[in-house]
């Protein structure tokens, strides 16, 4: 079975390293690239057409939300999993509005990254359990 190609986008190199370590321990995933800011993310996303972009919100411009608003239009096959430290309903709404398929808190990443990716691959949504599930379901139908 072909592996799922993942682009990592986060301005923190140690966070990228941690995410890469989790993904590489699993045959199913291939990290096809890493980006440290929004501009690089857009470039790599259009070059590599990954299956999933793991996308940080707070990054040197354009930020993750602005980035998300673009590839969802130009790369219909690419899904976006937002990963962020912002435990905020406002951010969750914004992520849903720009077309992300998932919203994972950084504090949950070690435990739930693979769960989140599997959901996205099977066409479902993922929202970190810190959020009210009714709210999550209404925002990410």
């Amino acid at each position, binding site marked *: 079975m072909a592996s799922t190609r993942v682009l990592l986008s986060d*301005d923190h*190199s*140690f966070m990228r*390293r941690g995410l890469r370590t989790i993904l590489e321990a699993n045959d199913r995933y291939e990290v096809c690239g890493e980006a*440290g800011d929004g501009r690089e993310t857009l470039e790599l996303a259009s070059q590599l057409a990954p299956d999933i972009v793991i996308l940080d919100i707070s990054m040197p411009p354009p930020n993750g939300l602005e980035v998300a608003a673009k590839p969802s239009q130009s790369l219909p096959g690419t899904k976006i999993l937002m990963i962020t430290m912002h435990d905020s309903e406002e951010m969750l709404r914004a992520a849903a509005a720009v077309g992300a398929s998932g919203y994972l808190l950084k504090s949950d990443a*070690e435990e739930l990254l693979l769960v989140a990716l599997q959901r996205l691959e099977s066409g479902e949504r993922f929202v970190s359990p810190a959020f009210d599930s009714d709210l999550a379901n209404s925002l990410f139908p």
Partner: protein
Amino acid sequence: MNALKVLIADDHDVVRKGLRMLIEEHTGWQVCGEARSGREAVEKCTQLNPDVIVIDVSMPDLNGLEATKQIRKACPRTEVLVITHHDSDEMAAEVMEAGARGYVLKSDSDTDLVRAVEALSHHKPFFTSRVTEMFLANRGSRVTDPVEMMRGRLTPREREILQLIAEGKTAKEVATILGIATKTSDTHRTNIMRKLDLHSVAELVRYAIRNKVVEP
């Protein structure tokens, strides 16, 4: 030769994992422990006596800067490498004042982290070039704000309490965490507010966020 013992302190599991990989890839370096809060970092440092601690600034309970001060006191031979996403000359100054001899931004590369641990293992300071440039460029022009001067006068215990209150802990909870009487914790709060010229807990929280004692 004995392995270099490194302690990792960050509240994010994934970041600790990334740091652990980076350090363990290096021959002769060993991660001797991990901590998720500043308070745990101080405890583990005292127990494990590492050569180097890599510590995040933004952590619950006790932030990395306050923890650094306590670690410098309790374990003077442990070198402290601070990692942070706050890219400012204020932060660079505070890191140095706290007694850390290394400072790396989270957006710096893996190589910077390795070079920093390497330098600290030889008891040499390491500041990423971005930090050094920023600090040197701004040092001459730093404005002396009276509130900032006052802030320097908060005692370490007061700064700890400031963080706990800003994290939403009640006077009673603060007292339990620190093992002091509720009345003492109240007195500290009153002193903090007087020193900083703040008149409500809301103002105190705003102050703590603005000055990056806690995250918004």
